Each structure stands twice: as structure tokens, then as C-alpha cells.
């Protein structure tokens, strides 16, 4: 546990050294919302389903934007060697990286997205539900991102590969997350979707750290 906190602190120090990367995601989010609003025309705010879909799309895409940078610095600066030499369990490293990525990149997007919902005049019930769903979805994506970044960071065409591979893996959470928001908007119950999101997150939590560890060891040879 202490090791986990030390690693988180290490990662957060590195993220805050280049804070502009974090704000990158937020700017991208705003960009997508604005473009969706402009492209859909003046009837954008009338069609609430479209608004919910756009906010979800923007949040998910902004989180995916910087996934490939997770392990970039480590492979470039040689700190992966450092972790292996110090016998740091690579699974805990993956969890620490996923958690610190979530804290820096995804949390800001979650807040901005909820604020966007407020701006568009949705009820607090929907916003609360959205908060829990998007948190689970972004946590899942941080885990997936760490595993895939361990595989593709710093290699030829790595960014493209990461984008291709993230897409299949994040389809289930996105489907269920948007469904949950739409259900709550239509006044229906959304506990099934939340259950699935929690379950999917638990499944990945119990398998992906080991996949990341295997991937790192494979890359180091």
C-alpha cells in the first residue's frame, strides 16, 4: 500500500510538471461540444438525446486523447529499468499509473462534463447518475489505457495502434453508460447498466494489471 502511494506521488509529480497536457483534454472536450452544437444546428438544445450523446462522446474521446503518453516517458527515460531493478511489482505500478492518470486527466473532464450538463439545464438526478457512470467508464479506460500503452508506447505507429485497440475494448462500457443516462432522462431505472459497469470494471481490475505487467516484461526483453 505504501508502495502504491509512493508510486502515485511519483506519477502525480511528473504530471504536474507538465500541466498543459492535462488542460489539453479539457480543451479538446470543449472543442467537441462546440463543434457538435454548431454541426447539429440551432435545434441542438431541443434534442436532449443528441446533447447527452455528444457530451458522452466528448468525454470518452478526450480521455482517450492522451492515453498513449502514459508509458511514453518511462520507456524514453529508462525508468522502466529502474522499476524492474528495484523489484517493484509491476501490477502495483500499473494500478498506480491508472489511478494517477484518472486523477489528473479524467477527473477534470468529469467535472467539466457535469458542468456542461448543468449548463444545458438537465436535472440533478441525471447529473448524479452521469457522475457515477462516467467515473466508472473513465476508470475502466484508464486501466485499458495503461495496459495498451505498455504494449505500444514508443514503438513504430504506437499511437495509431493504441487508438485501434482501445476502440473495441471500450465499446461495452460506453454502450451501457450512455444507455444509463438515456434511461434516467426518460425516467426509467438504470441500475442494470450501473451493475454492468461495476462488473466490467471489476473484471478488468482483476485481469489488466497482470496483462500490463506481462506487457512491460515483454518489451524489456
Amino acid at each position: 500500500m505504501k508502495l502504491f502511494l509512493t508510486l502515485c506521488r511519483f506519477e502525480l509529480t511528473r504530471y504536474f510538471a507538465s500541466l498543459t497536457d492535462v488542460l489539453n483534454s479539457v480543451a479538446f472536450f470543449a472543442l467537441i461540444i462546440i463543434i457538435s452544437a454548431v454541426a447539429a444546428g440551432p435545434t441542438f438544445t431541443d434534442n436532449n438525446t443528441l446533447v447527452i450523446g455528444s457530451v458522452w462522446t466528448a468525454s470518452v474521446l478526450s480521455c482517450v486523447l492522451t492515453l498513449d503518453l502514459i508509458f511514453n516517458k518511462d520507456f524514453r527515460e529508462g525508468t522502466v529499468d529502474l522499476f524492474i531493478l528495484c523489484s517493484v511489482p509491476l501490477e502495483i505500478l500499473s494500478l498506480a499509473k491508472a489511478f494517477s492518470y484518472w486523477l489528473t486527466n479524467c477527473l477534470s473532464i468529469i467535472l467539466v462534463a457535469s458542468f456542461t450538463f448543468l449548463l444545458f439545464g438537465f436535472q440533478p438526478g441525471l447529473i448524479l447518475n452521469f457522475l457515477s457512470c462516467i467515473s466508472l467508464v473513465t476508470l475502466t479506460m484508464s486501466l485499458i489505457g495503461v495496459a495498451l500503452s505498455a504494449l505500444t508506447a514508443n514503438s513504430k505507429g504506437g499511437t495509431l495502434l493504441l487508438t485501434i485497440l482501445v476502440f473495441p475494448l471500450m465499446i461495452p462500457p460506453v454502450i451501457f453508460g450512455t444507455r444509463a443516462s438515456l434511461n434516467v432522462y426518460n425516467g426509467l431505472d438504470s441500475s442494470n447498466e450501473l451493475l454492468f459497469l461495476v462488473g466490467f470494471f471489476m473484471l478488468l481490475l482483476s485481469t489488466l494489471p497482470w496483462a500490463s505487467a506481462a506487457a512491460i516484461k515483454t518489451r524489456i526483453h
Partner: protein
Amino acid sequence: MFKLIRNFLALESFYFFARRIQKPLLYFTLIVIGIGLYSGLFIAPRDYQQGDAFRIIYVHVPAAWLSLFVYMYMVLAAFTALVWKLKIAEIGIKSAAPIGFCFTAIALVTGSIWGKPMWGTWWVWDARLTSELILLLIYGGIIGIANSTDDPRIGSRSAAVVTLIGAINIPIIHYSVEWWATLHQGPTVSKLDNPSIELSMLIPLVIMTVGFIAYFILILMIRMQNEIIHYERNANWIRKKLS
């Protein structure tokens, strides 16, 4: 017994095994696919509703089955490569991925071609088609990762990890898309295999599937021979062969 299997799977002996079975396998494949195509295109009776256009099913369905079959082979090879660290398994993954990609692409394209006259659309977001598309992307990712590093062994092992991650997720993706799609469209989307398909239509399907499997093994053997030569290019037995 394990020693026997291990000796067989050593690169050198596997290479010569692959060379030996290549020619008979080629003839077998040509004959079986020939029979399958002939019986599918000419012998099988016309469908009651769809006329002759349904005959593309004899390419589409075996291709779809093969795309999943190749993926299952790759999962097995990935497991072997990561747990027992056999080089032949790493070569197997790298060789099979493009074949799987092609089969998936064929399935998607023939499916669209079938769909247009039948149901009026090139594409529909139902569970099966979306899962096939996702499978295509996963194959693309695996091929990309396998070729992304200078050291082919690292590339193949990374591809093995991705294969296993995908294996967990493909059933989940399939069921979640199915759940999502049925909510939108209801039960009017027809499934590909009727549970009560007539025998005269089934037999060409089975023959074509067997032919495609033989084709897969043939191409796999050829590709694996290439990879083995690449892996062992400094070894003595390659030098003896080339001289």
C-alpha cells in the same frame, strides 16, 4: 510424451514437416473448395424466398466461422507463447493474424453484398456485424503490434498479450452490442443461421468450411516456414539447406 511434442515443435523439425505436407495439402484444399463451390453454386436448391442470391452464404458463413476459428487458434498459441515460451507459438501468432484479418474482411464484405439485395442496406448495427467489425480492428491491432518492434520476438509476445486481452472482451462486446441493438430494432433483424436449415443446403456449407480450414492451414504453413527462416537465418541448418 511432452518431450516428443517439444521436439516436434522445435523450429527445424517443424519447418521440414511444413514443407512435406504443403503439396498434399494444396491439392486437398483445391479439391475440397472446388467441390464445395460447385455444390453450393449449382447443386444446392434455390432458396424459397431469396432466390439465387443467397448462394453467397457459401462464402460468407465459412469465412465468418473461420475468422473466429483462427482467433481461437491464436488464443491457444498466445497462451503457449506466454506460458511455455515456445518460439513456434510466437511464429504461429504472427503468421495467423493476417489470415484471420483477411477472413474477417471477406466475411464483412460478402455480408454487405448479401445484405443489400436482401434487406436493402449495406450495413446495420446489429450484434453480429458490429462484433465482426471489432474483430477486424483487433486483428489489425495485433498485426500492427507484431510488426512494431525491431526484435520480432518482442513484437510477437506483445501481440500475444493483446490476443488474450481481446479474447476476454470479445464475448462481452458481442453480448453488450446484442443487448443494445435489440433495444433499438426489435426482433426483425434476421439471424444468419436458421436452426432448421435443410440438409442439401447444409452439406455444401460444411464442405466449404472444411476447405477453408484446409486453406488456412496451408497458408499458415507457408507463412510459418518464412518466419522460421527469418528467425533462424544464422543457424547452421539453414546454411546447409541453402548451399
